[in-house]
């Protein structure tokens, strides 16, 4: 199966799961005792972090593979993972702020979870800026891979931050502590965002490959002219 076809299947599966997850999350899941209905932001907020983790993990693994093999295929996956991860990261930050205002009273606070998440977004935004400013494909891929590897160190820190520093942000919930009618929409949305992320990454890799091939041809032409 080609990456294109695999991506399309993931995209279609994501659409079905999004429809199921959103409909059940909004219409079937009960109101939360303390937060009321605003907790339903959870069905888009938490899945955003699943997409973020999938994107950054892809960038991390692909960057290690690039450093080891120097095969540009891995660089294409690296940039796709970083871009899609950042997209979901920003989505998570915005939906989190909109959830924070009615529950905490503020859109933003320098809580360790929020701060480490913002640092993670800035790091991977830096990765994309670095790529945009470097012309030589090999040095760009090498430098970007190093940034992705170092940047990924923050991902487990973000995850454990709510346990290490108990401040405003709650610790992770588990299915045992949540109403089953809330768990299934959440699982459907998490899987939907994961598949949506895979769909976007396969498309982004295809684009990166086309641009990479074009860039290589330009370099070959310039070398031949010299």
């Amino acid at each position, binding site marked *: 199966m080609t990456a294109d076809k695999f991506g399309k299947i993931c*995209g279609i599966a994501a*659409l079905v799961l*999004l429809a199921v997850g*959103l*409909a059940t999350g*909004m*219409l079937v899941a009960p*109101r939360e005792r303390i937060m*009321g*209905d*605003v907790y*339903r*932001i959870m069905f*888009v*907020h938490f899945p*955003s972090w699943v997409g973020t983790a999938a994107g950054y993990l892809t960038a991390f693994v692909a960057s290690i593979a690039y450093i080891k093999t120097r095969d540009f295929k891995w660089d294409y996956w690296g940039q796709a993972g970083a871009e899609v991860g950042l*997209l979901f990261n*920003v*989505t998570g930050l*915005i*939906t989190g702020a*909109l*959830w924070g*205002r*009615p529950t905490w009273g503020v859109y933003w606070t320098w809580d360790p979870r929020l701060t480490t998440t913002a640092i993670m977004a800035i790091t991977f935004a830096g990765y994309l800026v670095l790529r945009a400013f470097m012309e030589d494909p090999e040095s760009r891929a090498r430098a970007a891979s190093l940034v992705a590897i170092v940047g990924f160190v923050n991902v487990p820190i973000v995850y454990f931050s709510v346990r290490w520093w108990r401040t405003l942000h709650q610790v992770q919930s588990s299915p045992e502590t949540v109403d089953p009618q809330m768990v299934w929409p959440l699982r459907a949305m998490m899987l939907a965002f994961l598949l*949506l992320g895979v769909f*976007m990454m396969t*498309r*982004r890799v*295809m*684009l990166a490959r*086309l*641009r990479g*091939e*074009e860039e290589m041809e330009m370099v070959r032409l310039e070398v031949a002219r010299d």
Partner: protein
Amino acid sequence: MTKTAIVAIVVGLAAIALVVFAATTRDMSNADFLIAAYASATVILVIYIVSLSNRLKKAQEARGGEG
């Protein structure tokens, strides 16, 4: 506009419509924040998918044109 972009826009609008419908007809608390969160997430994802599919189509056409 690619087929993927059209599907993304239609699905995005349907998702926002569903949230607005649920929040208003069921008289949900903090409906404005709920709608804002879903709408912002949808807009971000739809804009990216539309942009990505258009960039991909252009790149494929450019490569195909050279051949």
